[in-house]
């Protein structure tokens, strides 16, 4: 199996889906000739031409809204928001429109659109090129939010998102783009949206997380294994709607749960995860449900001192895991 980077898996999924279905097309800022500011759409302009790899004007609400219209007509747009931080002007189109079109038309119309966006920090991106924005959308039935953690998951989940008949927000961790590499089958495969995935089996403590933090948790788990602490790691993969069953299973398995997100804590995805646990497996717990997250500040600063202070890293995860194990 070939080894690819996280971003190469994005490009491969896009290319294969465009080859497979002529209704699939890409639109966004700088996705065409330049191949995207991160080069996620590299080569697609040459292979599929301008009509299917469309450089749009700098206007996110139009990118989403035009995508919705094209999707209602029967195409499968894959819209890129250049940075997740810049999805905000499109919130009305995403929440008021894309999320509600099937429901409000009583199943008459639907929106098979994927919106991709690089999120996350640790890249000297400062306040507006580092944010985790999933919580803004994670209360909107009609939407699905996918946040993969490995190249393998990226390819399988992006393909599934593009084929999904409802709108999917697909957030890619920008620091993972070139940092994470892994085996990715050349053949066609899809992974199920809505299903969490056990990334490590273990019996002492449970870590539930998603995105780049899965990687940090795995690193920490390897270290702690040497100390005899055996961590069970659940990767949410789809952060909305959550895979309740998998969460409950993972929490009850060890009775000690640590939730990790790179987002600031209050109101983040892992609050809902904690609530599911508190509602469903309270009496299986041996320790309070712990949360490790960013501090309650608007976003991570640019200066390296403060950025590092904000970012989750393997050491912080290890420390929290150890504390929980010792509880």
């Amino acid at each position: 199996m070939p080894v690819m980077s996280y971003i190469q898996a994005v490009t491969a999924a896009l290319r294969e889906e465009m080859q497979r279905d002529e209704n699939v097309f890409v639109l966004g800022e700088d996705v065409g000739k330049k191949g995207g500011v991160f080069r996620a759409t590299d080569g697609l302009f040459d292979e599929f031409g301008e009509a299917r790899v469309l450089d749009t004007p700098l206007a996110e609400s139009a990118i989403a809204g035009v995508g919705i219209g094209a999707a209602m007509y029967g195409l499968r747009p894959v819209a890129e928001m250049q940075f997740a931080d810049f999805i905000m002007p499109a919130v009305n189109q995403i929440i008021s429109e894309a999320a509600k079109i099937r429901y409000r038309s009583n199943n008459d119309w639907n929106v098979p659109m994927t919106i991709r966006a690089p999120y996350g920090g640790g890249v000297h991106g400062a306040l507006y090129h580092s944010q985790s924005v999933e919580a803004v959308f994670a209360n909107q039935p009609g939407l699905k939010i996918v946040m993969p953690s490995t190249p393998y998951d990226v390819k399988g989940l992006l393909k599934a998102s593009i084929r999904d008949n409802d709108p999917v927000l697909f957030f890619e961790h920008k620091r993972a783009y070139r940092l994470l590499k892994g085996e990715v089958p050349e053949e066609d495969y899809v992974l199920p949206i809505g299903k969490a995935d056990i990334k490590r089996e273990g019996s002492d403590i449970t870590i539930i997380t998603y995105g780049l933090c899965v990687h940090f948790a795995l690193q920490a788990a390897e270290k702690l294994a040497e100390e005899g602490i055996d961590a069970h790691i659940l990767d949410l993969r789809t952060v909305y709607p959550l895979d309740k069953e998998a969460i409950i299973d993972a929490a009850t398995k060890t009775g000690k749960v640590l939730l990790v997100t790179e987002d600031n804590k209050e109101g983040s995805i892992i609050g809902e995860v904690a609530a599911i646990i508190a509602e469903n497996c309270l009496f299986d717990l041996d320790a309070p449900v712990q949360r490790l997250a960013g501090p309650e500040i608007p976003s991570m600063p640019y200066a390296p001192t403060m950025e590092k202070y904000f970012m989750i890293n393997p050491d912080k995860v290890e420390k929290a895991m150890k504390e929980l194990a010792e509880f």
Partner: protein
Amino acid sequence: MSQNRHKELGLTDEQVLHMYKMMLLARKIDERMWLLNRAGKIPFVISCQGQEAAQIGASFALDREHDYVAPYYRDMGVVLAFGMTSKELMLSGFAKAEDPNSGGRQMPGHFGQKKNRILTGSSPVTTQLPHAVGVALAAKMRKDPIVSLVTLGEGSSNQGDFHEGLNFAGVHKLPVITMVENNKYAISVPIEKQIASETVADRAQGYGMPGYTVDGNDPLAVYEAVKNARERAINGEGPTLIEAVSYRLTAHSSDDDDRTYRESKEVDEAKKKDSLITFAKYLQDENILSEDVEKQVNDEIAKEVNEATDYAENAAYAQPEDALRYVYEE
């Protein structure tokens, strides 16, 4: 109105009579909705009154078998012309399960019907504009010889989506026609406090497309403008912005009392230009709407509206748990 205008536009007597009937049908359904509202039978009405001419004029200039529309909440005329029936509109008014727009999920005026290529609409204004642009983009990509028409109020032309959508359409020369139904008010706010430009059509230049202001009380003027715009669009020459100026003859909605912000004299003046009166006059002068025909038309419409009302009133609501369906594909 001058003689034989409709023939100059290539419209037969039958066609203009058809247009008039549909304008009148829209008006009559709307009037019935108000009666039902005042009788406590339906909670909400938002009216087409004063805008029927623009809606029917524009729709008849399109290919109603193939083109797409993204109407706004006042566009009863547009959806009727695109094939929605009186019964279906009444089902929506009563919020009954059979309502094809939303199964009673949305308020009346939130149109949508896939089989008639009417995009589903919401309440936040102007969001439908980029959707119509997206339809035009998709049609262009697929080389389908169709256009999309999107309508909105003049107040709504101040939303960012107006700007972003029209510029997108202009850059990519897409076959989309935007018609602003300028009825001079956005709820209580008069046009001078809404829009700084002299006309809404003045905005077209900023998007590299032609812009026209036409008399929205004259269905033939609107027909002509939209017809030309459609030709441009089909020829690959890109989008057009049309402003149809009329007046909102009712309060904003059944929840509004317009006496707090406008003079009844102003409304009375506007009523003199009501297209239902002026277009009827034109058709009478053209010997198309004889007294006999008029009586027959009125009777037919009254019967249709009565039957639609009765049907809808007696139809069933959705079951409570139906609320749970169709969030995602099932």
